[in-house]
């Protein structure tokens, strides 16, 4: 088996969608194999209705460039504001959007695996996911792949 990368993506926010997608798209560009296992909120990155509109959480996020006190972050509209700030920063460095990065990953052969129990728990059906997503798998199938991988990461 070629060098390969196995990633677990557990977060469904805009900022946290980038690291797994960037690393996986880079891996296949380096002729490595790559797979991402989307579990818990990470499933949002494959959700047709959500993947193009992921948000940034201003609450309990002191690492933001302009930190928002929690009491302010709880005010309606602050999530939209934090998301807009992040989107502006993304645009400034000409980063691809999440849908564009997913397309790059798919084209390059990254396996986009939804987590089956996550789908059961959240009531998500296969047809709710983008067509680039593979059939859902469970922990054993992921671990079988990861056990052969040379790099494993979790976000």
């Amino acid at each position, binding site marked *: 088996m070629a*060098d390969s990368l196995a990633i677990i993506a557990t977060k469904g926010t805009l900022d946290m969608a980038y690291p797994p997608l*960037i*690393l996986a*798209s*880079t891996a*296949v*560009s*380096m*002729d*490595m194999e790559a797979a991402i296992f989307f579990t818990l909120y990470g499933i949002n990155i494959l959700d047709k209705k959500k993947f193009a509109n992921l948000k940034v959480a201003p609450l309990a996020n002191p690492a933001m460039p302009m930190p928002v006190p929690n009491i302010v972050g709880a005010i309606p509209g602050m999530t939209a504001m934090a998301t807009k700030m992040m989107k502006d920063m993304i645009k400034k*460095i*000409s*980063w*691809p959007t999440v849908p564009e990065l997913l397309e*790059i990953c798919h084209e*390059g052969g990254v396996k986009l695996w939804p987590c089956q129990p996550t789908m059961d728990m959240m009531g998500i059906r296969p047809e709710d996911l983008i067509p680039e997503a593979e059939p859902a798998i469970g922990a054993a199938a992921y671990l079988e792949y990861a056990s052969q991988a040379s790099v494993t990461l979790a976000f």
Partner: protein
Amino acid sequence: MGDTIDLKADSVLDVKGLCCPMPVVKAKKAIGTIEVGQVLEIIGTDAGSKGDMPAWAKRAGHEFLGMTEEEGSEVFHFFVKRGK
């Protein structure tokens, strides 16, 4: 590395303004369009590419020939020979 490199490229890829991961993603596509043994020149502005391009070339089975930097302009030229 320096200004002493005098390399003829068979193909040129312009990724100015793009940052990680796009220079590597586009370089991978571009090198597939030239023949084995030919040279791809990648012109970019991403400082991270100084580390990324040699790493990509090595891992993907190509030969990193070197880079030059346009003085004062933050524009980098990378030369990679297709290896397979």
